[in-house]
């Protein structure tokens, strides 16, 4: 990884689900000693920052509002300032940033800010989204609070907390987590303790190995358990035939145009007809997409395109038929020429 490209991870989870406790333990681990922390507290008197011991010069508390709706520009500005201070040697030379969101934050707009702000472009790479779920009250929270469902749905990893109080997680809670996000591995924290290496290598890029772990990132084999009558659904669309670049562009544009707000997250590996030996990885959050990242080679013998969708009530069949129809039309036009 280039020296100045820094992974940025998001730690999310509903109010009281144990985010700050986990972060406090993580920052004591040697693997995360060079971490800048941004805590977003939403309220008159923020306390979370008092509970986390971190180097003061790379620790920032954002308390002017909720990150997802009020202070997205503040977040971008804060990150820009942090990077400038690092470049100027005015703070610790951190090599990772963790944002702890407020318990009421929707992580999708935060991801979009990280993806689209010009002031931080080229300096940061997404390190993944981690969501905490309280095993004592989590099932009820997930039933009542839409935002907690969304936090779980967009996560790359889920961490169960407060197992010391609840005992083993209830099967009903585990089923609900699978319904919301079958792709994300479910880990457990022991009184807030969890290995940082398990947690923050949740993104596509593995900074330790300086490699792309596509199969783990997609976790495509875990989607068969998703319940399809749920509000939030996870499914994978698999296509054996290569997909033309024009087809994929039209497909993604149409998805965004018609269902952008409900397209919580999309991740995939694509066999482009124009590039059979070098697949591309795609990623989107609502209507914001990363440019495809081209891999040097296929990560396995499976050369099918696999696109994982996490959506709110976007039917899988519509997505499949849309891709099929656009592909057929593009093919039809090509033949006619």
């Amino acid at each position, binding site marked *: 990884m280039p020296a100045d490209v820094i992974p940025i991870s998001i730690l999310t989870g509903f109010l009281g689900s144990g985010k700050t406790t986990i972060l406090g333990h993580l920052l004591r681990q040697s693997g995360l000693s060079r971490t800048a922390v941004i805590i977003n507290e939403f309220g008159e008197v923020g306390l979370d920052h008092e509970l986390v011991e971190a180097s003061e010069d790379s620790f920032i508390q954002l308390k002017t509002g909720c990150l997802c709706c009020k202070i997205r520009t503040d977040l971008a500005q804060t990150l820009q300032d942090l990077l400038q201070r690092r470049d100027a040697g005015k703070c610790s030379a951190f090599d990772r940033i963790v944002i702890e969101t407020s318990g009421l934050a929707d992580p999708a707009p935060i991801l979009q800010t990280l993806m689209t702000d010009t002031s931080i472009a080229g300096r940061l790479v997404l390190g993944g989204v981690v969501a905490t779920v309280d095993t004592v009250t989590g099932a009820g929270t997930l039933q009542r609070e839409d935002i907690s469902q969304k936090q779980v749905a967009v996560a790359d990893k889920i961490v169960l907390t407060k197992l010391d109080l609840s005992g083993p997680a209830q099967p009903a809670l585990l089923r609900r987590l699978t319904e919301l996000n079958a792709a994300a591995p479910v880990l457990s924290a022991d009184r807030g303790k969890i290995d940082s290496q398990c947690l923050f290598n949740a993104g596509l890029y593995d900074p330790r190995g300086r490699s792309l772990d596509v199969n783990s990132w997609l976790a495509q084999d875990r989607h068969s358990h998703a319940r399809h009558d749920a509000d939030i659904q996870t499914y994978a669309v698999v296509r054996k035939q290569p997909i033309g670049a024009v087809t994929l562009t039209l497909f993604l544009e149409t998805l965004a145009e018609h269902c952008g*707000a409900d397209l919580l997250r999309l991740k995939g590996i694509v066999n482009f007809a124009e590039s059979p030996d070098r697949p591309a990885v795609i990623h989107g959050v609502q209507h914001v997409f990363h440019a495809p990242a081209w891999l040097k080679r296929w990560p396995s013998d499976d050369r099918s395109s696999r696109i994982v969708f996490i959506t709110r009530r976007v039917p899988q069949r519509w997505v499949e038929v849309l891709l099929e129809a656009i592909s057929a039309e593009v093919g039809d036009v090509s033949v006619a020429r």
Partner: protein
Amino acid sequence: MSKFPVDLTCELMVQSLAAWRVAGAVARSRDGAIVICGARKDIRIDPAPSDPMFRWMVTIDGRKRRAISIVAVLRQVREALDPGYAANRVRVALTALVPY
């Protein structure tokens, strides 16, 4: 005339109404067109006669409009059936998914 499979378009319309959460009925007419009734609109979709530019003809309450692609057909149908519809436009992220 296009050899594009009209059955596929018909299924796409059925699924699109479900995806948009719009009430309506989709059927095939005897002459092969796709007919959609919903939101007090009558919509008819035909493959366009040979035309180097336009592949589809969309008739909404008797008014004919040509459509360049199936994507354009979807947009016209959505606008007719869903007056509150505001299209999102794709934005391309500036930050990298992986380091360059």
